[in-house]
Structure formats: structure tokens, C-alpha cells
């Protein structure tokens, strides 16, 4: 089943009958080629009609999602977000028309709508069209909107050009968000990003402020020269989670000098060898 059909099924299993009927009827009108205004009003009405419970997809529904669109992960979705995206998909508009309407919807969006529109990015037709929209979402000041793009969303790793991708990763750390839920984090690591992250670490050190252990994840594969000095500093002076992160990062470095840095730290070497260190375990919980 395609995403539109899947969301329809998930919602019909959760919504009380009159609400489900309203949603079906609205979608039917939109499929019949309704006007821009019909779409805008229906999408806005969702919060008054549908409520804001968590979607709370079952493990099977999450599998269906990934089968319907690879990488699609609605774990954190709410019912109103799903309904809004469903209505947009119901228009069956082509890429150009869909992108134009999405821009218009974003112009007048409230906070909850913005989160929904960005979470829907991987489901929209003609995927490359929305790269600028995704980058705009990354520029937001609202953390929840930022995370709608950055977390559990395959769109950025598939479509964002490197500069925008790098901004997103750096900003996640900057606003105190996590990297662990970023899809494609390791695949899209690059030397420029590694340099930016090390510069950021120096800024934080200068200001006497803490650094997320996750920062070193995207540094490791490109760590060489001065970056190795930074990792050595973390190994020698960091907190225990930071030291574990530095060890993991060094284990991914191509530079032979990386292994030498680890040798005085038998505890970390053993933990690495036993597979006891993982980025997931080092991600802050929030």
C-alpha cells in the first residue's frame, strides 16, 4: 500500500465514526480536484475536528510504513499531523502543483501545521522539489519544527545539498537537539562537516560550556591532524561519555595515528573490542 492508503487505514482504526467520515469526505472532495481554498480550509480544520492524540503506530504499522516508503518513520507522529498529510496527499497533485500549495500552506501555518508539513516531506510527489523547503525548515527558531525536518525523516539525507546538510547537523547540536534520530548521519558525514564540528567544539571549550558526546560521531571518519589533537584532548580530559565518544570516533578514523592515541587507554580499548560502546547509548535522552 502507498502512504496515502496506509495513513487512511491507520486513521480509520483510530478516529470515532463521525470524525472519520468528515476526513473521508474531505479527502474525496480533494481527490475530485477541489480548489486551493478547499485544501487550506480542510487542513486548518483538522485540529478542530480530529484532536491531538499521539498516533502511536504499532510495530506492524511501522513496518508497513517502511515498506510503503523506505525510511519513512512515523513513530512520533500525532493523529492531527497524519490527517493533515493525508489530506495533502489526497489531492494527487503533480509535483509543481503540490509544491506551490505546500509553500502557500507554510506561509499561513500555525506551529502544529509546520511540524506536520515538514514531517510529511518524504511522502510528497517529485521529491527533489522540496530541498529548499527542507532547508527553510532547518532555519526555524522553533525546535519542534527543526526536529520535524531533522529527526526520523529520510528526506534531508536524500535531498539536501552538502552545505544545507552540514548546517542541519551543526544546528542540531547548537539548539541542544540529538543526532541519534537523524537519518543517514553516518552516510552523509563529510570532511567539511568534521571541520565545522571541531571549530564548534573549540568555541564551546573557550566559553567553558559542555559539548554533546555525539559531536564526535561525524568527526571520526575524517579525523586527522589537528582533529586528532582535539580527540586526544577529549580522551585525556573529557567526562566518561565524552571519552567513550572520542574512542568510538578514533576507531572510525583512517589515520594510523588514531590507534596510537587510543593505546594508553586500555579501558576504552577493551570496551571497543567488546562492542560495549555505541553512539545510541551516548545520545542524550530527552
Amino acid at each position, binding site marked *: 500500500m502507498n502512504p496515502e492508503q496506509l495513513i487512511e487505514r491507520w486513521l480509520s482504526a483510530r478516529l470515532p465514526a463521525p470524525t472519520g467520515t468528515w476526513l473521508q469526505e474531505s479527502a474525496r472532495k480533494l481527490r475530485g480536484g477541489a480548489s486551493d481554498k478547499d485544501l487550506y*480550509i480542510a487542513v486548518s480544520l483538522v485540529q478542530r475536528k480530529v484532536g*491531538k492524540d499521539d498516533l502511536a503506530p504499532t510495530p506492524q504499522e511501522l513496518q508497513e510504513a517502511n515498506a510503503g516508503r523506505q525510511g519513512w518513520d512515523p513513530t512520533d507522529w500525532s493523529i492531527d499531523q497524519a490527517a493533515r498529510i493525508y489530506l495533502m496527499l489526497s489531492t494527487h497533485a503533480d509535483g509543481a502543483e503540490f509544491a506551490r500549495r505546500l509553500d502557500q500552506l507554510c506561509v499561513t501555518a500555525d506551529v502544529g501545521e509546520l511540524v506536520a508539513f515538514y514531517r510529511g516531506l518524504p511522502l510528497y510527489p517529485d521529491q527533489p522539489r522540496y530541498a529548499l523547503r527542507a532547508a527553510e525548515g532547518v532555519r526555524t527558531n522553533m*525546535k519542534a519544527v527543526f526536529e520535524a525536518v531533522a529527526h526520523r525523516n529520510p528526506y534531508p539525507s536524500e535531498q539536501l545539498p552538502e552545505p544545507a546538510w552540514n548546517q542541519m547537523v551543526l544546528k542540531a547540536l547548537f*539548539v541542544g537537539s540529538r543526532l541519534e534520530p537523524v537519518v543517514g548521519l553516518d552516510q552523509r558525514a563529510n570532511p567539511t562537516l568534521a571541520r565545522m564540528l571541531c571549530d564548534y567544539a573549540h568555541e564551546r571549550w573557550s566559553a567553558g560550556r559542555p559539548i554533546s558526546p555525539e559531536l564526535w560521531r561525524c568527526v571520526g571518519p575524517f579525523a586527522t591532524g589537528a582533529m586528532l589533537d582535539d580527540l586526544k584532548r577529549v580522551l585525556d580530559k573529557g567526562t566518561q561519555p565524552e571519552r567513550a565518544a572520542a574512542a568510538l570516533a578514533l576507531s572510525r578514523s583512517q589515520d594510523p595515528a588514531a590507534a596510537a592515541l587510543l593505546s594508553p587507554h586500555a579501558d576504552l580499548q577493551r570496551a571497543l573490542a567488546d562492542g560495549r560502546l555505541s553512539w545510541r547509548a551516548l545520545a542524550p535522552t530527552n
Partner: protein
Amino acid sequence: MRFIDPHIHMSARTTDDYERMAAAGIVALIEPAFWLGQPRTQVGTYMDYLSSLVGWERFRAAQFGIRHYCTIGLNSKEANNEALAEQVLEILPRYLMKEGVVAVGEIGYDDQTDAEDRAYRAQLGLAKELDMLVQIHTPHRDKKRGTSRSMDVAEEMGVAPSRVIIDHNNEETVQEVLDRGFWAAFTIYPHTKMGNERMVEIARQYGSERIFIDSSADWGVSDPLAVPKTARLMLERGIPTKDVEAICYGNALAAFGQSGQMREEHWLNPAPIDQRVLFEGNSVLRGQQPKVGELPRIPERADEIVFK
């Protein structure tokens, strides 16, 4: 005691204000769409302003533990730019159904021109069509007549008085507003019009039914703590606690709560999705540690403003 400020223009205020308001016990506020001092000349700037009311400002307020609602409308001053007014009226329906929009407002009369009258009637029509409440700004000049006229036209258009909030009342207007069944809001201004001393006397005379107060704080000289300060004065002057609570919290909630968009549970027991969307960010509290559900302490001013 908890407070609601049902009329305040937070876009024109600073984070210091939010901190002080939260510390003084304000849990929710309503930001009416109004003019910005400098007249707008483009529909696009008007849209961006309305978008900020349902977007950024709502989020910003939540960072301080205050729930933000708004009213959406074309204000009377800018209704006089008829070319612009027509375009704004065209885009208003795109905002009126947004989350947290509790009424069409603030609308009504300023100079009481024909253009203002047309825009006012058009928006009363929208409110009827969409089954929305109406928040009315009464004029500063020729106030008594303007207030009567606002109510005449609302009744003529078939909008029920119980669904209309008449704002910026004074001693001269309140009797008629209450007699006709409308809600009567009072703006407490620091230097002009309604001072809080006068409000105490109004509470003494009229009681608390369908009466509530607001600050209307904006970019001018105004006091975002007008509601809690007036509450304190009313208590000091012997107004019964239940009346003070009604005037400073309960009645605004009862009036605007008719929209279904503003409910006490929003600040007493927010939905999980709202906690994630509205209470987790730290972009306003840059460099500080945001604490969900806790408010920043401002000890040096606490004696003066904290009122619980």
C-alpha cells in the same frame, strides 16, 4: 491566584515581560491582531504578521510557561486603506480556523468612517459564517456613541451578544454593555483612561458578572502586569476573592472558552504533543537551561510582582 490577560500584544514586548508575567501568575493570554503603529501597505506584511501570531509568538510564549491564544481580524484603523483592506479580508479565512484562534478581533470602529463600517460588517459576517466569537475594539474618541453603534451593528448582523466581547470599556459605557447582554472588558492603562483605582470602584459597583480586565500592553507606555496588580489592589480594597478571580481569570476563560480553542487543561494538563511541540525549545532562553514547567526566578523583583 492564576491570571489570564485576555488582551495583550506580545509581539511588541520583550522576554523580560514574559518572565515577569509568568512569575506574577499569568498562565494564559490572548493577543489580538492590531496595527503596528506604522501602517502596513502590503497584504504580504499583514499575512506575515498574522502568521507570527499563530506561529512564532505562540511558541515564544510557551517557552515561559504561558499559553498564547490570538484573535484574527482587520483592525479599524487599517480598514481605512480600502485597497489593502479588501485584500486582507480576502486572506482572513485562511487564518480563522488555526489552532488557538479564539475570535475574530480586534475589530470595530476607530474614526467611525464608512470604510471602517464596511470592514466591520464584513468581519461580523465571517464570524457568523464560521461560528466564531467576536472581540470588539471600542473607539478612543466619541467612545460612548461608538460603543453603542458597535453593539447595534452586531445585533443587526445577527451575532448573539453572549458571543461578543466589548473591550476598552469605561464608567460611561459599562452599564449599556451589560444591560444588552454583551461581555464587558476593561483595559487598565497606567496613565490614561482606566486606571486600576477606577477599576476597583467599577468592581464594587457592578460586581463580577460578565466583567473582566486586560492590559492591552503594546509598543506604547503600558503595563503587562496590569491584571495581577489590579487583582492585588482589588483584594486590598475588600473586593471578595471570588469576584477578583472571576474578573482576572474565570470570566475571560468563560467568554473566550466558548470558542473551544482555549481550555483550562491546556495549562493545567497539556497534551503530550503540546508538551513536545510547545514546551521543549530553548531558542528564546538562549544560553539558559530551560526547565519544563518551571519559571525563572527573579528574586529582586519578586516582592513587588509575585502574587500567588
